[in-house]
């Protein structure tokens, strides 16, 4: 598993890096990557997303300098912003039984394991992919798959400004978002969070996966 920490990077730039990694993983089937980053504020729309779940007009988005990017992943509208850890695992699902829902389930488990390291109890809700604390969402998940190589992935609200989510119905739902910081855990850095999530991925998928 090759780990790449992209730092704070524009969504478009990270997408180009993802594409290169996906192509490498398709060519060499045993190659896999874990990309870590934060994005400047951006809204991304999954393939079947509905524009009405963005609650601002195009003019207002422009005024606030918030770009909207259509992406080839599942799910609805998602917001990325600094303070949110975005993880793009680029894994070959042929090695794990070619099962999309099983892989989404594994990502949820990674999220729950990660939160446990902060003494936070995360849970899944049937029919609502992601990780939740009570009724609040803390981790969003959406993937794309080409030739059984998975890309896109998950975003974890670490210490993101939760007010930013007021501009959307996250994932097309009227849900309240939360973050690790908002849950009262703030004595760690983003770097600590990255190290922890890498460990959790390696434990669940294996360092050589």
């Amino acid at each position, binding site marked *: 598993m090759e780990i790449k920490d992209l730092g704070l990077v524009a969504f478009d730039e990270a997408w180009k890096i993802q594409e290169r990694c996906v192509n490498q993983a398709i060519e060499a089937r045993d190659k896999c990557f874990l990309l870590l980053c934060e994005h400047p504020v951006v809204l991304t729309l999954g*393939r079947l997303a509905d524009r009405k779940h963005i609650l601002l007009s195009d003019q207002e988005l422009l005024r606030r300098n918030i770009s909207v990017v259509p992406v080839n992943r599942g799910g609805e509208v998602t917001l990325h912003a600094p303070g949110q850890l975005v993880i793009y695992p680029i894994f070959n699902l042929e090695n794990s039984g070619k099962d999309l829902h099983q892989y989404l389930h594994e990502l949820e488990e990674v999220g729950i394991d990660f939160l446990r390291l902060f003494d936070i109890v995360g849970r899944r809700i049937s029919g609502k992919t992601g990780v939740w604390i009570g009724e609040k969402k803390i981790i969003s998940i959406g993937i794309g798959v080409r030739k059984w190589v998975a890309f896109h992935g998950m975003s974890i609200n670490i210490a993101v400004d939760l007010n930013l989510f007021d501009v959307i119905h996250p994932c097309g739902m009227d849900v309240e978002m939360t973050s690790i910081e908002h849950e009262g855990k703030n004595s760690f850095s983003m770097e600590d969070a990255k190290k922890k999530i890498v460990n959790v991925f390696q434990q669940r998928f294996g360092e050589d996966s």
Partner: protein
Amino acid sequence: MNVVLPQLGGGIGKATIAFWHCSIGDFVKKDDDLVEVATDKAIFNIPAGAEGIVKEIYVKTGEDAAVGSILARIEISKLEDREKNDNNR
């Protein structure tokens, strides 16, 4: 050649057509992305299995299709046919 919605994993019986990369009449090469299907929070790309012309598209964007159902039909190009014949000699 028929383009079929493949097995996507246990318990997945259908998927929604999310995006067609091609239209009827388009020429496609083997392995080109043809169509993306959605299930839960996943988008799955189905590539062209052969080079040829897209003759039929049976399921529109936003509609559901069952696993194993035919989504489109590609008329394999004559070049491909010739290569196939050569390989069979």
